[in-house]
């Protein structure tokens, strides 16, 4: 989906290739949060792992990839639901008019106290028109579609196991990342939770990376740190919540590619467990 100046193509292609082993998920809605099920609609779309109470949330996500100034992702996602059902829709734009693509996506799923899951679909279209042969007609911008799913299941009362299969099917222009499978387990007690995860691209099952992280929450704020191998790198994130307004940020340091910064601003209207459903 990337067609423009060769030098920039090389830079961004190298960055994307390196990200292949980073996570088995897409990057259009990859907001700041720890691995596993999330309350963020953007991440429902990203991973297919919905979590959280009934209500509505609006996510504004911005990502600066690997220190590339011209290569950022901006996305907007809104999602929520009532009872066990959840729905999220979102749009995103990555890169610029020369090298980049626009995305529209949706996810639908359910949540119960002991399990959850969602189906996700995303369509991407290049922002630039491909260079055509002299004399040939104007080509249309390439489009690609990707569908996947995710699910999680409770183990006992304090742990969950999850699996994200974000790209079960793809058609048209190839997706920017080779997304295979991510599985993990998260557990915790009181305000501390920890997780272990494994993820791999579809065509390099023997190159899977392992992730370990821990989150400490205190009142309306939380901080998490995460370490990954191949190559070894770390991420640190924080989020804070106040009266239906939430901000989150995560910084990932890559030894070769540099720093990736994720920011998210969330507006929410969430029904607490004690509040009756209308």
């Amino acid at each position, binding site marked *: 989906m990337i067609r423009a100046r060769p030098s920039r193509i090389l830079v961004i292609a190298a960055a994307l290739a390196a990200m292949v082993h980073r996570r088995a998920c897409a990057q259009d809605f990859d907001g700041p949060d720890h691995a596993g099920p999330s309350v963020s609609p953007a991440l429902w779309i990203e991973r297919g792992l919905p979590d959280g109470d009934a209500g509505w949330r609006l996510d504004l996500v911005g990502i600066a990839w690997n220190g590339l100034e011209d290569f950022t992702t901006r996305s907007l996602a809104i999602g929520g639901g009532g009872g066990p059902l959840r729905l999220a829709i979102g749009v995103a734009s990555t890169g610029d008019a020369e090298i980049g693509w626009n995305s529209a996506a949706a996810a639908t799923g359910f949540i119960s106290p002991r399990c959850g899951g969602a189906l996700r679909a995303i369509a991407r279209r290049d922002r630039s028109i491909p260079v055509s042969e002299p004399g040939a007609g104007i080509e249309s911008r390439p489009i690609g579609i990707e569908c996947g799913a995710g699910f999680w299941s409770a183990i006992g009362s304090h742990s969950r196991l999850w699996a994200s299969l974000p790209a079960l099917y793809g058609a048209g222009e*190839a997706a920017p990342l080779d997304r295979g*499978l991510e599985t993990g387990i998260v557990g915790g007690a009181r305000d501390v939770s920890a997780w272990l995860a*494994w993820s791999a691209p*579809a065509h390099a099952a023997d190159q899977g990376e392992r992730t370990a992280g821990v989150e400490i929450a205190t009142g309306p704020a939380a901080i998490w740190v995460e370490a990954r191998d191949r190559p070894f790198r770390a991420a640190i994130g924080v989020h804070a919540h106040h009266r239906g307004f939430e901000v989150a940020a995560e910084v990932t340091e890559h030894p070769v590619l540099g720093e990736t910064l994720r920011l998210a601003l969330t507006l929410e209207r969430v029904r607490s467990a004690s509040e009756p459903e209308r």
Partner: protein
Amino acid sequence: MRPGTVVIIASIVMGTMTATISAGAQAPRDSTAGAGADSAGVDLAAPADSDSTLEGEEPPDDADPERDYEIERDDLLAKGSFEMGYAFSQRAGSSLRRRRLLRVREPTLEAHVRDGQGDPLAGAELGTRVRGGWLATGRLAPRWGRGLVLGTPGDPWRSGFMGAAAARSRAGAGDGVEYRARDLPVDLLVQRVRRVALGGFAVDGAHEGAGMVVRRDESRARSALFSLWSLRPNTSGELGADSRGRWRGEGVFETASPPFVTLAGRLGHTAFDGAVPPRTLAPRSIVATAWHSPPAPISLALAASWWRFRTAATGARAALEVRADLPQHDRIAAGWEERHGRRRVARTPGSACDCGSGADGFRQGLWLEWRGGPPGFTTTARQEISGARSGLRSVTRRAASAGVTATPVRGIELGIASTVYRSRSGEPQYLSEDENDRRVLHALAGAGRRSRMVLMFPAAGGRVRATLVLTQAADRVTMPQWTLDWTARTRTR
């Protein structure tokens, strides 16, 4: 409706059935199929099969490692009922394929008919009550004792070796006729297996038995083999001999109370072969032992075996499995296995050779599996790695799977499963996937992903199973394949 009428009507409906009449309605059958055979995906998320081996299912060693392997499911039809099924499937770039199934089980008649283009399980089995006994015709897979003389012997590098269950190999299956007397423990058999003609007679009591089989091979040379066996809940054994005085014996003993220890051994002449020589040689000598703890919330199982084909061709295996049964029927299991030496010693016509395969040698493997979830939402996740060097280095196979089966409404089931894999040439990663009437072991070679989506719902008095399989190989081209399978069971009385 009389059972015979049912069979005749169904046969007419099913049209030009090219099946070979076969029998042994109780005998499990298996066969190989090309990779393009009808298949649907993984029942990764199906409820745990207590008999499944956690180290993964593999076809028998005489199967082509490059091809899928199909096994008839051990799904016994209730007495006084019949089953019909139609299946359509299509793989991208190939024509539509059709498969049909009919099974009848009555006190006086049993029939099992499959038909379909390229279906490796196509064929028919018929068993009927006759004067003084039961007559079965068609493809038979008889087994005496532990399979040393008739049937196929177990492989000591597999978990099921100690058990008395029939090996899954198709080496001993072939068309034939079998008569079992009703009031006498007498069994008569005439069979043809891979150009070997057999005629056998057995006296088969409740636990012990003795039999003689006469074999005539391609060269029209005749020989006789004799077997004496015992099959009891905690002990089993067999002593086989041929007319030239060569013999082989095998025995298994298991303690009935804790500690649950099993000991097994095999000994005999190198040149001894069963009535139908398997494609790969069976080990001449075996020593095996196993121990497992009581089925507590956390159970432990250990197994070790050593075998020898001949002086220079030996092998050994050790395995450890830990299983934790959690509340709500959840289960976590982990296992480790190490193997040395040869597993396959190929046979050339007329003589044996020490031809090893690329899959032989040192292997170390580790697996971790989860099955569970709340009612109506069963999840599975599995990690598996095997290497040719210690510490799981020089990876020969790597696979990761996850699957879910949801039952949103009674009678409707939706399943999604996906596996990413990489395997070395000659050592495919096998993926066990259940279909309505069979289990398919898919041989996944190279690197890629196989995803399967299944929807099951009631329709037309039966059950429809719609499956979409997406296989993405190293060239990143997605190969879709769909199957629509309808099956209905009805009681005849």
